[in-house]
């Protein structure tokens, strides 16, 4: 088991390193640079001045040199300063990570809960309800999540005035926010964000139920007269969990992808909206830090999935050849 954990941790670090190299280079290959953007917006177009500023920021050095310099600073916890605002990148990112984590966690819990209930119902119900529940995930998956977000805002914030339309706190609260206010602001974006993972979980759940229900041990249990509910709870559903855990990484990636849209629609002050702005402004230092945060989140969630495997699958915990 120790070797398994070490292996997974090592490969995760390699993934992070590889991702950081690819993304470090990618942002620099996109036309435009922060110096031209910022100085251009300040009325400075002189190529000599722009070139001198680029030199001053070290952006004229070969990419490997820039990368090594950046990585060595990052290893010491120093992400540098925003090339646009001059603020410390750690301060900018620190402000954004919390709201993103909160939204991601809330959407994960909601997505898993709703998806499981939805999938189980679609697996065991019959008739029209079964047909509707099985068709619904496809419908949800083809509707863009930002449309769902806008519809939720219109219904619950603008029309009914039950929930806040956007943001993490109400304008008057500022830094002194109550837990109740935080939760009310969280409901709509979390709901909009959880629908895609919930649909994926639902589809996977009822498909797995269909598969497990055909297994011999289930048929045997039925033949022995074991009540259907007991078969479902004791034999069928535990086997459903494994593929859901397997696809945990995919669900996290769906969450991260959609979070950028949802954060924008709800003006949620998270890493997603930060990244959109930073990319538009070619603010390399902020983009790099943001991407690293996302990559770490992805890798950590993958590690967590692997950890869960250890718990739920004895074949991983005790491999047959040991």
């Amino acid at each position, binding site marked *: 088991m120790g070797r398994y954990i070490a292996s997974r941790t090592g490969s995760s670090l390699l993934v992070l390193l590889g991702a950081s190299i690819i993304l470090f280079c990618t942002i620099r290959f996109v036309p435009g640079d922060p110096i031209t953007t910022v100085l251009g917006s300040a009325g400075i177009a002189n190529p000599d001045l722009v070139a001198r500023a680029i030199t001053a920021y070290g952006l004229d050095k070969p990419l490997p040199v820039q990368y090594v310099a950046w990585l060595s600073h990052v290893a010491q916890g120093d992400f540098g300063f925003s090339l646009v605002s001059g603020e410390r990148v750690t301060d900018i990112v620190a402000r954004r990570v919390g709201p993103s984590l909160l939204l991601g966690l809330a959407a994960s819990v909601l997505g898993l809960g709703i998806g499981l209930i939805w999938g189980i119902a679609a697996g065991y119900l019959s008739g029209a309800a079964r047909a509707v529940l099985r068709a619904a995930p496809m419908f949800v998956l083809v509707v863009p999540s930002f449309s769902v977000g806008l519809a939720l805002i219109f219904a619950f*914030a603008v029309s009914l005035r039950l929930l806040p339309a956007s943001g993490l706190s109400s304008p008057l609260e500022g830094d002194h926010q109550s837990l109740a206010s935080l939760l009310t602001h969280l409901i709509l974006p979390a709901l909009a964000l959880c629908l895609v993972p919930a649909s994926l979980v639902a589809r996977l759940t009822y498909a797995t139920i269909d598969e497990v229900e055909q297994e011999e041990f289930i048929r045997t249990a039925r033949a022995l007269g074991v009540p259907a509910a007991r078969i479902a709870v004791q034999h069928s559903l535990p086997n459903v969990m494994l593929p859901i855990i397997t696809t945990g990484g995919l669900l996290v990636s769906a969450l991260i992808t959609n979070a950028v849209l949802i954060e924008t629609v709800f003006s949620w002050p998270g890493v997603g909206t930060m990244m959109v702005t930073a990319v*538009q402004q070619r603010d390399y230092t902020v983009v790099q830090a943001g991407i690293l945060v996302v990559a770490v989140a992805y890798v950590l969630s993958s590690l967590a999935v692997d950890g869960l495997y250890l718990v739920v699958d004895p074949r991983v915990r005790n491999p047959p050849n040991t």
Partner: protein
Amino acid sequence: MMNLHARVRFLGASFVALAVVASCTQPSTQTGVSPSASGAADTNKTFVYGMPQNAVGGCDGTQIVVTVPVGNCPLLNQEALVRYDESRKTVAPSLATSWTFDGTSATFKLRPSVTFQDGTPFNADAVVFNYRRVWDPTFDANKGVKFPLAATVPFKSVDKIDDMTVKVNFTTSRADTMLLMTTYPAFIQSPTAVQKMTPADYTFKPIGTGPYKVTSYQDAARFELDRNDGYWGTKPPAAKVVIVIKQDANALVSDLLSGAIDASLSPALEQFDQIRNAGMTIQTSPALVFYGANFNVTKPPFDNTQMRQAAEYAIDKESITTLSKGAAKPMYGAIVDSMREYNPDVQGYKYDAKKAGDMLTALGWVLPAGGKVRMKDGQPLHVDVIQRTGYSGATTLLTPLIVSNLQDVGFDVKTVTVEQALQYTPQGYFDLSKWNLAVGGWSASIPDGGKLMENMTTGAFVPAGFNIGKYSNPTFDQKITDAAASFDQAKHDQLLKEAQVILKNEAPWLWIYQYQSVIAFNPAKISAAPFRLFGQLDILNLKFK
């Protein structure tokens, strides 16, 4: 890295800054805020205002790269020695009570008994500190800070005459220097506070003498200001101002309709009806910000004056007012009628598609039978129109209007789009091979027609300025230069009126509309929301219900 920011500041020392306007026009400084609220009684009310973006660089007016309609924070917190009186269209006292100006130097008598918001005194030492901080690279407080717009004020040196008198020397002799002294780089802040914090921290906790104190500042999210009860001028009406920044204008409208905020700047045009139907008020106000397009005069077909004039006649400028639901006002020349230097005798190009067509025909560009594109010597009348991404409001209508109107009179039009970040770069508008007509906006750094028209002189060719289409006329240039050097206002204005005649005749720019600041507000809370010249909401003169 902070040293690098300092280097950027040095690099800015030789440019003439223009204005970043509404994030899609050329760059500019901004005039100081009016110190007195006219007739608006102070209340204990809180005003919650939503804006789609805030100024890059925080709330230290001297450091920001400002986008004009959103530059509220420094305007509420800090002041310059002089301000621009928008009603009288002249420079007026602010932190200085009087001054003398001879072109190359100005001596200011400072206002007595004024203190900064941290309780420290405002005096000649503070002024010397602030000005040297902005322009003097040998000064300690100048290090580690970026001042992108520092060079807009031609500071040469500053001397303390006595505790309440300073003399400022300038590098150039221009009539508009006192106007420049009203702008961000000349804003005065507490030397004690500046020296107490790092520049990165200070810009979010600035200490000025202005009517509001900054109590919290989350960049690109929210900032909060409390009324400065020790303010020397008339107290503003709102006890507290909360500015909410959300990039998505739709989110702000939802906030307005759900009652979370009192007003929202620049709502999307398509939401106007929804806003009005919900009982909210939409108010527009013209700002000194203009939109249209530059002709590329270095290559056919717009190297020909008559061709440019034909294109001017082809554009239905009035229709943009209707299409934008009042968020744009048509304009017909370089200077609008609200400016002192406006020449009423210059009749601009009003929409006349037939005349445009006749002029094109006279130039040999003929519509073939059944064809839609004019031809000459077997070649189509083709033009490339360049635009950038990220337009909002009425600006989204600009390119479609130009393209469809030009097509109507027989142009073959192709649209080239570049990313916003690349607009003023060699990959964008600076590559003249890419375009014949460049869609964009412009503004003066100060409310002066001469400064506005400097954008159109040979001296403003890229990279020195933003005359991207390379229009050049020595007679026009001379009039602008003479106007800038003239301290006789009548002569100054006359020269600029003559310059407008030249521009009208040569049509190097396609002037289309004057930007209208648009605010949506809750009439149950506010009865009037006035705007300032460059499009900022005049929070000091709000009228509460």
